[in-house]
Structures are given as C-alpha cells and as structure tokens.
C-alpha cells in the first residue's frame, strides 16, 4: 500500500506528544521514589510510599475519592441511561432537546461548582424554594450538602455534568439499536418497555460501561470540584496531594510525588481491572462488539 515512511512522518508530532506524556509520568514516579538529582537525592527508595500508605490522613483521603468516584459514576450511569432512553423514545435522538442536553458538557467544573453553591447551599435557591413551600423556617434547617465530609454536594455537581455526558455518549448506539432491533422486538409482541429492557438496554451497555469508567477515573482524579465544594477534613486525594506538593519545604516533595504516584498507579490498575472484567462480561451479553 502506501509508503511506511510517510506514515512515520505524519505520526511524528504524536510521537513527540506521547514521549512528553510518558516523561511526565516518569518524572512523577522517579521523584516519588526519592530520585531528585537537583536536591542531591540519588537513591531510589520506597520509604515515601510506605509513609503515605500508612498515614491515616491518606486513608481518609483515598476513601473520600473512591466514594465520590463510585457514587458519581453509578448514579450518572443510571440516570444518564434513562435520559438517553428518553431522548431516543421521545425526541428520536434529534432536535433542540439533544443540543440542550449537550450544554453542561461545555461548562467547566469551576462554573459547575458555583452553580452548586448558588443552588444547593443552605442559603441557595433550593433552600429558598423549600421555605416558599413551607418546609423550613430557617436556613439552618436545610440539609448541609456542601463542604461536608459526605461530599454530597461534590457528587451532585459531578452529576450535573456527567448525566448529560453519559446520555450523549450512548445516544448514537441506543438510537441505532432501538430503531432496528427494538422495532423488531415490538413487532414480535414485546411492549415498548419490554423491548427496551430485553433488547435495547443490554445492547447499549457497552457504551454505558465505557462512560462509567471514564467518569469514575475522572472523578477519582478530579481536583476542582472537591476543592471548591468539599470539606476541609477529610480532603479528597488529589487536593491532599496538591497541598503536599505546594509545601514550602522542598524536601517534602517526594512525599507529595508518592501521593501522585498512588493516584496514577491506582487509576491505571482500576482501568486495567475494569477492562478485564467488562471484556468477559460484554462477550457474554453483546458478543464482543
């Protein structure tokens, strides 16, 4: 076919970018092992990892991030699938509604945090509506969703962006399946609901599960929302790590890098594990599409 040399030339910029990415990861890992020539540290050591992994502050931070990531991803996947089904069934996956659903994807997490503050804080709009409905008399009676160790506000803010993301990500697949196989199922005697549950939904799962992984990893490693909406104690892991990184004592640097290293390695491990699990599961359901 075409010349391999041309292909190589075309791919040079990508190679350069990939090299930089790998170097970035390598630098973090190197420094986490205590290798920082600029500070005179030459010996690789696992001490910083050991200290990190045994610190109780780290444990609570890790738990927070895992919890936020898991709950956000699960809720977003479920609600996003329902939203997608609604778009397919009611709007036939076209029109102004679909464009509207895409809007939250364009809004950055920082602005989403402000939305959460304006609506969900104890003096926010929802609280005022509760007063108007006679449910509360005092802002203090409105449940605290923001800045709590439960990170409820953070999860809700993630949902605002991620539910439309799941819907949009799954839309093309679900619309296609529904129009052909879903239609055939109804023709064979399945009510629209049964057709959705037995045919359309199982065959749309590959897209939903991919979206789940993307959201999970993103929420796990996310910084902006936990910083702006989370509690001061316990912190989310990326916030905790960045704070350590900003420590004025530069000898603390490897400790911070160890925290980043944990985030990196955990993310990679979870992605790999998830890939293995779903590959086998999806082969059973959808035949490895």
């Amino acid at each position, binding site marked *: 076919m075409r010349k391999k040399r041309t292909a190589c030339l075309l791919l040079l910029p990508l190679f350069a970018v990939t090299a930089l990415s790998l170097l970035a990861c390598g630098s973090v890992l190197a420094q986490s092992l205590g290798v920082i020539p600029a500070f005179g540290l030459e010996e690789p050591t696992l001490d910083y990892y050991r200290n990190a992994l045994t610190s109780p502050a780290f444990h609570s931070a890790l738990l927070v991030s895992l919890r936020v990531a898991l709950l956000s991803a699960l809720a977003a996947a479920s609600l996003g699938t329902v939203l997608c089904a609604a778009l397919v069934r009611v709007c036939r996956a076209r029109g102004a509604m679909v464009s509207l659903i895409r809007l939250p994807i364009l809004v950055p997490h920082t602005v989403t945090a402000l939305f959460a503050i304006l609506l969900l804080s104890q003096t926010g709009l929802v609280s005022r509506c509760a007063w108007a409905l006679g449910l509360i008399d005092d802002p203090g009676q409105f449940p605290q969703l923001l800045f709590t160790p439960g990170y409820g506000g953070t999860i809700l803010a993630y949902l605002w962006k991620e539910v439309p993301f799941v819907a949009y990500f799954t839309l093309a697949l679900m619309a296609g399946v529904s129009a*052909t196989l879903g239609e*055939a199922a*109804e*023709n064979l*005697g399945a009510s629209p609901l049964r*057709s959705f549950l037995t045919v359309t939904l199982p*065959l749309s799962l590959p897209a939903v599960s991919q979206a789940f992984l993307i959201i999970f990893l993103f929420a796990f490693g996310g910084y902006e929302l936990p910083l702006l909406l989370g509690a001061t104690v316990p912190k989310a892991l990326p916030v905790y790590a960045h704070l350590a990184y900003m420590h004025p004592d530069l000898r603390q640097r490897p400790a911070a890098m160890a925290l980043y290293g944990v985030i990196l390695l955990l993310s990679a491990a979870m992605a790999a594990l998830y890939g293995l699990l779903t590959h086998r599961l999806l082969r059973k*359901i*959808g*035949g490895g599409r």
Partner: protein
Amino acid sequence: MKLEIENLSVALEGRDILRGVSLRVEEGEFLSLLGPSGCGKTTLLKTVAGIIAPRSGGIRLDGEDLTGLPPHKRGVVILFQDIRLFPHMTAAENVSFPLRMQGVGRRERLEQAEELLSRVRLPGWGPRRVESFSGGERQRVALARALAAKPRLLLLDEPFSALDENLREDMRALVLSLHREFHMTTVLVTHDREEALSMSGRVALLFDGAVEQCGTPREVYLHPATRRAADYFGGCTCLDGEVRGGLFHCSLVTLPASLPEGRYTLCLREQMWRPAGNGPYALTVKEVRFRGPETMVALAAEDGTLFHKRFPGPAPFQAGDVLRFHLDVGDPVLFPREEGL
C-alpha cells in the same frame, strides 16, 4: 386471517409515499407485492404492522380495525430485509423470544424453539450464538422466530434479495412449504418478477404508491391492465396504431379488435413470434448475442421496428439473415393511447 386495506394514504417526512392503496388478501392466501424500488412496498408493510401511522384510510384484519392498535398487539409479523436477529441471544433464545413475550415458560418455549428450528432445517442449532451464522442460516432463524409469534398475518420484506442465487431457490421452497403447512396469510414484497410470478396465488403491482393491477400471475403477465404494467415485466415491444371499424391497424399488422374507435398501442411479447419457414412476416437479423443457454437475437421489421427474441442454445444466425415468422397474438393486448404519450 383476511386482510383488508382501504384507501390507505401514508406520508413520510412531507413526501407522499402511498396514495389511496386498496388491497384485499384472503385467508391463507399468498400475495406478492411487486414493484420497482421506492414505490412504497416496505412503507406499506410497516404501516400494516403498525410501525408507521397512516394519514388516512383503514386496515382491517378479519374485520377488526387495526387503527390505533400498537405494533406489539396486532399479530402482524414482518420478516425484515436486514433480518434483525438479536446478537446477544442464542438461536433458540431468538426463536423463543415471541413465546417469552406471550408468557410461555422457559422449558416449554425452548422446546418449541427447537421444533421450529428443525422445521427450518436447522435441527439442534438452538444453543449456538447467531453472530457466526451465514446469511441463509440467519434468514431461516428469523423465519422460525416469525412463526413462533403465531402471526395472524406474515409479511416478508424482500427476504431473499441478499442471498446467493442457489440459496434463494431453497429459501423460496422453504417459505412456500411453511406457508402450506401453517395456512398463514402471507404477503411477500419483492422487486424480482420471476419470484413474484412463481410463488404467489395473486400478484399486486405497486407503482408510485398506488396499486396498478392485482390478479393471478397469468392475468398480470398475459393481460396487463396498463402499458406500465406491461413494460414492467419486460420483453415486450409496443406498436402504436388505431382502431377503425373493429380492426386495429398499425404499420406492421392488422388485427380484429372489438374496441371503440381511437388511438391504441399494441403490446407484443417475444413468445408471440413463432419461427416458421412459410410465415407471413419477414424480419432481418440485426445483431446476434450468445449468452450460454440462449442466444439473444435482435430482429428488424420492414418498417424498422426492432424486436428481441431468445433462441435456445447457440443459434446459427448472422446479421443480415432474413427469418420468417408467424405472429400468434392470441387475445391482443391493447391500451388506449392518450394525447402526448
């Protein structure tokens, strides 16, 4: 189940697809819906099945008005052109799907599925996943699945067009035998003329969203109602002329015709030309094309009109030869000629 379609009009995305289609299919009958692509055959099927809503007109199955009834309650099953087997289910699960929807228990429905698979000559194929099946095998599973739904009306949307020639013959025979066995009212949509003529009890010609003619295969082929119908089956040459005093006159031939005076077109099919050494018509060979089992010969009459006739095997003719024919017109097919046509 008897199907009655009355004055059905369907529009899709602003365009009129079906204009006042009326059709009747008797109980247990096999009807072919024949027509060129884009004439609305698939739309008609989908409207009868309830997938598309008509703009006006009525559909009745055994007297019951289907308007407003959702697709899954009509008992009208379509075998789609793109087959649409469920990829995440085995063959048996696919076939037993309608039974599952009817509430039949798992063991019983899988047994019935196995039986149906045997009927379509795939015995024991139940536990296999459908993705590895060939085109013909998938078609057969889809057929079994359609039968499992115990349809009151079976609609086939060009089911054989994607298959190889040899496979098509087998599938046609299978469909016909199942039709006989289950006594099911069946409508087959196709653009293959030979298929329609050979398989059906009656053929309905659909042009531009309306029924041009409906009758037995012989009626439709030998006595086409319009020139378009005659042209559709091909192999016919049309001669313009006029009827005067009970006779049709054109440049080549004069025939008795008990029709009112006026301008008419005569439709001649190639079988009407009978080679005979003493025949009254002399045609000159213009072109000879050998095609294997037959030879296509182009012949010109005295007035220059071109006719095509197929001769079996390699015919010993050359350009310039003069051949003599009888013309067996039988019951002449004459269409009134309109101004400007």
